[in-house]
């Protein structure tokens, strides 16, 4: 399967701490995206990083991409209770085939 895999499957941290989750994939990609899903707002796009980029920032989010290792990481700094959600990486393969990963469930404890 070309589906990405997130690691860890579940993560629990205190408010104010940083959260890091990782995504690994198997074949070359056009770009990689991170999405957040919670019951209140559904599935929401967070950030996109292209295959020729190594790092990208958006507010409290930092994404890195290592195409040699076929992996990406999402760092959320200074976490808030509202960050509690499931986080998915989505890979865009040549031919515009999209695959979502298995997800990381993040719980931020107030």
């Amino acid at each position: 399967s070309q589906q990405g895999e997130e690691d860890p499957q579940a993560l629990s941290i205190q408010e104010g701490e940083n959260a890091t989750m990782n995504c690994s994939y198997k074949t070359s990609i056009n770009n990689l995206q991170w999405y957040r899903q919670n019951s209140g707002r559904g599935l929401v796009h967070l950030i996109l990083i292209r295959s020729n980029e190594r790092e990208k920032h958006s507010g409290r989010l930092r994404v890195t991409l290592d195409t040699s290792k076929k992996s990406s990481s999402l760092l959320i700094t200074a976490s808030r209770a509202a960050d509690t959600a499931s986080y998915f990486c989505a890979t865009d393969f040549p031919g515009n085939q999209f695959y979502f990963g298995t997800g990381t469930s993040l719980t931020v404890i107030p």
Partner: protein
Amino acid sequence: EAGVAQSPRYKIIEKRQSVAFWCNPISGHATLYWYQQILGQGPKLLIQFQNNGVVDDSQLPKDRFSAERLKGVDSTLKIQPAKLEDSAVYLCASSISTDTQYFGPGTRLTVL
């Protein structure tokens, strides 16, 4: 800007019955996607349209699932006949290109 609309939000049917879901994408978005998300898993792409042409339907169970996008705008996804394992949330998304996808609220299907 209005978001992606889906209906119905919930549907309960008996196995072997038929069901249809409707999606209205964001105005001007050429690309439309249907995903199936089983509880505890990530969304699985079923079909991707570019305007009214199919780009990818490699994961669509074509013996029971069908989808169409008439006039390159609204889309319907149909399951006929439904099986127990089709119980899932069906998500519709749209995008201008193949970058950011905007998702609708989904339709939660329960097959009894």
